[in-house]
């Protein structure tokens, strides 16, 4: 995958589009005629990162597949807020079955299309972190192992938001959820548990694994396009801040996703057949505290009434995770 370097200094190439850029260097989101896969009127909260990411991913995938795309959705926020009976926000062929089986349904859909001579129709499965890392993991692992021709996208908001913010296998340490309250000797979610699904996917040595956030649109679209150019099992893990569950301002959704990457807590990389092939440099590294402070789920780390020594120790432990990510993926750090 190559991203063209644009010698353009007003906004670099980070903004969604720009009148001064040629059309092919703008994002699909800058395109007036984008699919708008997830249409207005959906019932996601204000500033929903998942609604944003789903449109980013599907509009690009639709463009890459020349409109020949079918989407399978796991149960979760995304499914609930988009399809309250009898309304639908989807402007793509869209199928929902159960919480656990999105990967299996997508596998079957791909097989059926192929055998009926419609191999030109591409299949994309999507779900939240609950449906992906916990409830649907067995089906997903099977899809990976069989190398079925499905592009699976996980929108990770780090807990079960739809049912009331319960902890999932993707909830980060120290985060408060309804089931990991900020009480006791180790407030919030415990350290040392949980699942790193991009690495689990890489361990299956599937053709393509990548991570993205809603803050880096050019990077996200390039990864979707690359995934759509390949066949076989592909996996994209997108970090999507959740104003409701994270206790953040709706206007800060993109900013928080940006800080997750800049702090090192959410590394952006691509891997093919189990080997990391590219990482996105951190432009202007920040301490994890800058990321955590904007979220009420971490308020106990900064509460004046709290145990200062323990708060400092927890912050150091979170910082150590960021440091380890940067070392693990050898992420270059650039001056801002």
């Amino acid at each position, binding site marked *: 995958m190559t991203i063209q370097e644009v010698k*353009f*200094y*007003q*906004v*670099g190439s*980070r*903004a*969604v*589009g*720009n*009148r*001064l850029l040629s059309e092919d260097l*703008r*994002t699909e*989101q*800058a395109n*007036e005629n984008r699919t*708008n896969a*997830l*249409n*207005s*009127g*959906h*019932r*996601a909260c*204000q*500033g*929903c*990162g998942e*609604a*944003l990411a789903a*449109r980013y991913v599907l509009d690009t995938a639709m463009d890459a597949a020349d409109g020949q795309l079918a989407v399978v959705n796991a149960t979760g926020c995304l499914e609930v807020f*988009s399809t309250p*009976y*009898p*309304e*639908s*926000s989807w402007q793509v062929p869209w199928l929902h079955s159960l919480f656990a089986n999105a990967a299996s349904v997508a596998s079957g859909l791909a097989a059926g299309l192929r055998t009926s001579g419609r191999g030109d129709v591409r299949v994309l499965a999507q779900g939240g972190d609950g449906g992906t890392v916990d409830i649907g993991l067995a089906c997903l692992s099977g899809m990976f192992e069989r190398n079925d021709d499905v592009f699976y996208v996980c929108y990770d908001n780090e807990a079960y938001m739809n049912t009331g913010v319960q902890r999932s296998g993707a909830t980060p340490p120290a985060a408060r959820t309804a089931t990991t309250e900020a009480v006791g000797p180790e407030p919030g979610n415990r350290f040392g548990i949980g699942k790193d699904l991009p690495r689990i996917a890489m361990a299956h040595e599937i053709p393509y694994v990548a991570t993205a956030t809603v803050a880096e*649109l050019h990077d996200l679209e390039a990864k979707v396009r690359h995934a759509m150019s390949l066949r076989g099992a592909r996996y994209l893990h997108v970090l999507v801040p959740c*104003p409701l569950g994270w206790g953040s*301002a*709706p*206007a*800060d*959704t*993109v*900013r928080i996703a*940006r800080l997750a990457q800049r702090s090192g807590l959410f590394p952006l990389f691509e891997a093919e057949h189990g080997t990391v092939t590219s990482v996105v440099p951190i432009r202007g590294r920040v301490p994890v505290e800058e990321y955590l402070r904007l979220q009420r789920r971490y308020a106990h780390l900064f509460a004046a009434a709290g145990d200062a020594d323990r708060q400092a120790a927890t912050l150091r432990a979170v910082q150590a995770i960021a440091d380890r990510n940067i070392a693990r993926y050898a992420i270059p750090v650039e001056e*801002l």
Partner: protein
Amino acid sequence: MNKPFAITLDVKSSLANHTGTWRSERPVYVDGLPPCTHACPAGEQVQAWLYAAEDGSYEQAWRRLVNDNPFPAVMGRVCYHPCETACNRADLDTAVGINSVERFLGDEAIRQGWRLPQPGAATGRRILVVGAGPCGLAAAYRLRRLGHAVTIREAGSTAGGMMRHGIPTFRLPRDVLDAEINRLLELGITLELGARVDNLAEEMRAGEFDAALLAMGAPLSKRAYIPAAQSARIIDALGLLADVAAGERPQLGRTVAVYGGGNTAMDVARTARRLGAEEALIVYRRTRAQMPANDIEVEEAEAEGVRMTWLSTIAGVVGDTLTIEKMRLDDDGKPQPTGEFEELHADSVVLALGQDVDRGVLATLPGIAITDGVVEVGAEMMTSVAGVFAAGDLAPSVRSVTVAIGQGNAAARGIDGWLRSIGSSAPKPTAPSSAVPVAFGQLNPWYFSDAPHVVRPRLDTARRTDDFAEVVGGLDADTALYEARRCMSCGNCFGCDNCFGVCPDNAIHKVAEGHGYAVDYDYCKGCGLCASECPCGAIVMEPEET
């Protein structure tokens, strides 16, 4: 009712669900006041012309520029660019080189022969402008475009005023000045040279002028009493600069002392170096911090080897020996004599102590109010005599070419408004703008890549003290484009599509008119993502009425 089992309703689109009702704040597109535009003494819409230059539309950029200032090529050389001092980009890397882009546009216009906008429909009004300096010419330009008949009477033999007589050629080549003045006069402005106005009231009557603008500037050098023997060589700065500008090369000697700390003192010291002085020494009675000269001029003078002596006054001159008295600052920051003296060698002494207004013509206007040596004016630049306006160096102002142009503009607006209000009972007050410029904190600088400002090629300092060639070179088309594109467009949409992209509700549409985008308030939930991800602060969130 032919529906599958358990299905009772038809499929509907979520468009039926108007989520706009959730909103407590609404995003609104605004046109903020960019700090460069706010800071420009000549009233240029800086961000607006940079915007046009960003896609290489240089002629359009130049047209927006000359809407407010007919001298871009001059400005690009002599303006002290307060726009760059105000530029928000300085908080990110370095300020946008606005002045160098302006010069590029000005030079390009001369190369391409672009013409100024034609005058509007004739109004039948006649206006007399006294003085063809930057202020008088700028005022004449605006008045002519408003359709008035304009006559400029200039006592000297050339137009340009201090641009011609006070600014050395190494800062402003005369072919550039001539090109811009001639282009302006082509609009049908009558210029009468060698026409000194001695009795304004009489000339207004004789010429049937409806209004007059006094813009004669402050052409007289201030004097200071310095006890000096006959042999001492004491010259005044304006006379020296005018002689040199006219092509003379006066012999000043090996060591030249310049008395004063303003821009004229710097120009004189730099001129002295070019005339062959091995040493040019500025003598100023206060400290560097209090010196009125612009930092750019001081830096360039220092780079050319001009030396400075602070806290010093010239107590006397005998032959080629100066007696300097050391000063100290008192608690109020005022210089006080210390009684300590020292002697310096100087072959000549140039006095650059400021300039005064020539009161000759003013004496013929009974009732004109003069305070601190300058003519008092109201907000519309009208003096205490009805129909007589004053602007530029002879009115209260910071004396620079750019400020003079701004004052000329203001006076032209004042004259036009006054002519229109004659006979109508309602006076037309124009309240001074109280708008606050967009601050760096209102931008989202993440989207702007670092890119240091292109430094204009400068002639080697060693070379430049030898002759009067222009010191600061210009940008070429590539570098000018690069520099223009560094503009962050503070407070004004530049079409980056961020709002269109980051709305989770597809509630922003592209439209042909206005700002290019429109919010669909049926679906906008008021999350504020568009406003917080707008790079240039052109969207604000306003509370909904409850």
